[in-house]
C-alpha cells in the first residue's frame, strides 16, 4: 500500500490560472521521489499542497490511508526543508531543531537526545548554541535538515534545498542527503529543476510540465525511454538532438530520410515505425559514434569544441540547428574540421511528429 496517494489534485490561482492540473501519483514506502521540471511547472505548488501551505482546488491527498487534504500543516505529520532554509534567526540552532519537539511537549531529556542525534547526523553537533547568523549557508542548510529530521516525519519534503549552495557544496550535500535517506529510510519528496540532481538522487523521477505529469519513472526510464520530446530534451547534458525525418521503404528496408543523411533501420525499429511517414528522431550526444574513415551516416563540419576532461562536446551545424555530440578526448578536433558520425542504432528515440509522444 502506498504511503502517499495524490488523487487528481489540482490548484487554480485567482479562479483563472491553473498551477497544477489533475495530478495523480502513488508514493511507496521508503521511496525517494524527485519532482523535476522547468520553473513554473507546478512542482513546488504541488509540494506545498502536500505540506498544507497551499489549499487544493480539487482532488485529495491521502497519507498512510488518512485523508489530509484539509488538515492544517501541523497535523499532517510532514516535515519540510525550504529553499531559503527558513530557519529562525532569533533562535539558537538547538532551539530551531527542538522547536517542533517542544510544541509536541516531549520530555526535555528526550528532546535533548533527539536534537543531538540529528545534529550529529548532519555534522553540526558542535554548533548547537550558535545563532544562524553566525553560520555559513551550507551550515544553515544542515540546520534546516536537522530540524526536519528531528520530528521523524511520515513524509519528508524538500523544496529545492540545494539551489542556494555553491556548485561544489551542492554535489557534496547531494551525496550526504542520499546517505541520510538510506539511513533514516524516510519516504521523501524532493523538488528540483536540476536534472543531474534528480538523476543522481531519485528512486523515481516525476517529470512535470505546465502543471501536469509528463512521465514517472526510474532515472533509467526517463533517460533511455523518454516519454516525449520534452522529456528527451530536458534530461541529459547536453540534451537530446532532434531531427525531422521522413520514413521511407527502400529495397524492403526502412530508411530514415533527412536532407543531410539517410539511416537504415533494423527489423525491430522498422516494425515500430510501420504506418508512420514523418517522425522526429532523437539522438543523444553520446550515441553519435565518430567514424574515422569519414564515411559515416552524418557528415558535417566542426563548429565549436568544448573540452570537458575525459570527453569533449563537439557542436555541429546541421540545417541551421546546432547538434551537440560527445567525443572522447583523444581525437583532436578543431573548428572547421570535416567530421563524420554513425548513430548507435540501439538507442535511437522516435517521436510522433504531431503528438510529440514516444513511438514504442
Amino acid at each position, binding site marked *: 500500500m502506498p504511503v502517499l496517494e495524490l488523487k487528481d489534485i489540482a490548484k487554480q490561482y485567482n479562479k483563472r490560472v491553473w498551477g497544477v492540473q489533475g495530478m495523480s501519483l502513488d508514493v511507496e514506502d521508503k521511496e525517494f521521489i524527485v519532482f523535476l521540471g522547468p520553473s513554473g511547472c507546478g512542482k513546488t505548488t504541488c509540494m506545498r499542497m502536500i*505540506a*498544507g*501551505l497551499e489549499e487544493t482546488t480539487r482532488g485529495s491527498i491521502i497519507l498512510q490511508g488518512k485523508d489530509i487534504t484539509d488538515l*492544517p*500543516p*501541523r497535523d499532517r505529520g*510532514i*516535515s*519540510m526543508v*525550504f*529553499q*531559503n532554509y*527558513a*530557519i*529562525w*534567526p*532569533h533562535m539558537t540552532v538547538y532551539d530551531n531543531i527542538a*522547536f*517542533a519537539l517542544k*510544541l*509536541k511537549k516531549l520530555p526535555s531529556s528526550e528532546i535533548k537526545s533527539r536534537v543531538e542525534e540529528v545534529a550529529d547526523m548532519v555534522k553540526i553537533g558542535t554548533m548547537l548554541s550558535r*545563532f544562524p*547568523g553566525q553560520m555559513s549557508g551550507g551550515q544553515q542548510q544542515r540546520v534546516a535538515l536537522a*530540524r526536519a529530521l528531528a*520530528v521523524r516525519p511520515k513524509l519528508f519534503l524538500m523544496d529545492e534545498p540545494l539551489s542556494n549552495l555553491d556548485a561544489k557544496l551542492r554535489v557534496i550535500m547531494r551525496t550526504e542527503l542520499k546517505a541520510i535517506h538510506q539511513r533514516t529510510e524516510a519516504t521523501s519528496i524532493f523538488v528540483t529543476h536540476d536534472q543531474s540532481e534528480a538523476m543522481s538522487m531519485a528512486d523515481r523521477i516525476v517529470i512535470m510540465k505546465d502543471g501536469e505529469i509528463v512521465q514517472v519513472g526510474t532515472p533509467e526510464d526517463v533517460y533511455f525511454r523518454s516519454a516525449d520530446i520534452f522529456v528527451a530534451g530536458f534530461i541529459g547534458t547536453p540534451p537530446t538532438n532532434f531531427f525531422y525525418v521522413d520514413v521511407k521503404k527502400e529495397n524492403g528496408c526502412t530508411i530514415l530520410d533527412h536532407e543531410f543523411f539517410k539511416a537504415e533501420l533494423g527489423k525491430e525499429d522498422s516494425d515500430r515505425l510501420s504506418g508512420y511517414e514523418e517522425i522526429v528522431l532523437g539522438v543523444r550526444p553520446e550515441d553519435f559514434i565518430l567514424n574515422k574513415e569519414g564515411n559515416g551516416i552524418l557528415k558535417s563540419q566542426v563548429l565549436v569544441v568544448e573540452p570537458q576532461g575525459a570527453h569533449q562536446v563537439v557542436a555541429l551545424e546541421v540545417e541551421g540547428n546546432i547538434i551537440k555530440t560527445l567525443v572522447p578526448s583523444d581525437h583532436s578536433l578543431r573548428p572547421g574540421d570535416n567530421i563524420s558520425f554513425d548513430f548507435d542504432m540501439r538507442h535511437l528515440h522516435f517521436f510522433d511528429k504531431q503528438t510529440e509522444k514516444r513511438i514504442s
Partner: protein
Amino acid sequence: MGSIRRGVFRSVRKTTLYIVVAGIAMALIFPMFFLFTFSLMSDYESYSEWPKPLLPRIKVEFRLTPIESVDGSYKMEIWNNSEKGFTPFGPEENTRANKSLRKLSNFIRNYSNCFISEKELSEIMDSVDQNGAETFILKKKVFNNYTRFFTLYSGAAQSVLNSLATAAMTVFLSLSIGGLAGYAFARYIFKGKNVLKLSVLFVRMFPPVAIALPMVIILGKIGLYDKPVGLSLIYSVNQVSLSIWITASVFMGIPESLEEASQVFGASKIGAFFRITLPLAVPGLAACAMYSFIYSWNEVINALILTQFNPTFPVVVYRSLLGANAQVHLIAAGSVAQALPAIIFTLFIRKYILQMWGGVKV
C-alpha cells in the same frame, strides 16, 4: 618625500573633518546644554548676573554685616559674579525678630535656591555681634527649580500623568491597529490594496489644526472632550497611518517561509505569528512605538484645543511661557522636564532601533 607630503595632506584633511563635525555637534548640542544649565540657575543668577556662566553655581557666598546706625539690625549681601563683589540682597534691614528672620530665610530660598533655617540665621547674627561682619557659604539646592515649577504651576504633576496616559494609549492604539493592518498589507493580496494603502497616507495630509474644531465637537458629543482618551484617539488617527507604513515594510522584510516553516513544525497560524514573526519584528515595532510616543508627548496645538481643565504637560509648559509671572529659569526647568521622558524612552529602546538600522544583527 611624496609619502610624507601625502601623510601630512591626509592628517590635515582628517583634522578639518573633525573640526567641521565637532562644530556641527556643538551647534546641535549647545542650545540643549544651555537650556539645561539655565534650568539649574537661581532667580538671582538668571536676572542679576551677566554674562551667564556656562556651569551653574553649586555654592553661594553671603555676607552679613551689622548696620551701625540701627542697633540689632543687619544687612545681607550676596556675591555677584559679574560685579566681582557683594551686592545687597533681601530686605534692607534684618532683625532678630521672628518675622524678620522668616522673611529673610524665605527670600534666600526663593531667590538663591539656598536653604537656611531661622535658627541658623540667628546663630550667624550672634557671631556677627561678637566678631563683626561675617561671610558664609551655603550649598545651592541645584534641582530646586524643578520642584518649584511643579508647585508653582498647579496641575503640572497631574498633567504629566495625563500626558503619560495619552502617550501610552496612543502607542497602544497605533501599534495594535497599525501593526495588524501593516501585517495584512505585507502578507495578503486583496482588492484595492494599493488604493487603501495610499488613502491611509492621505489622512496624514491634513494639518491637525484644520480638523481640530470638528474634532472638538465630535469629542464633546461622545463625551471624550478634555480627556486623555479623546486626545489619544485624535493622535492615533495620525499615528496609525504612519505605523501601518512602517510595520508593513518591517513585516515584508520577514520572509513568509519563516512562518510557513513554523506551521509545518507544529505551530498554528496565530502561533506562528506570535512565536516567529512578532519577535523578529520587535525592532521595527519599537521604532514605531518611539515615533508615536514622541509625537503624542510633544504635541501642543491639538492638546491646547482639545483640553481645558485636564491639559497635557506640554500645554502646561506652553501656558507657563505666556503667564504674567513668567520666570525664565523655571520655564527652562519645565522644558527640560518635558524633554526628559522622550529622551529616556528613546535611550531605552535604542538597542532595537540600532538593530533596525543594521547596527546589530540578531
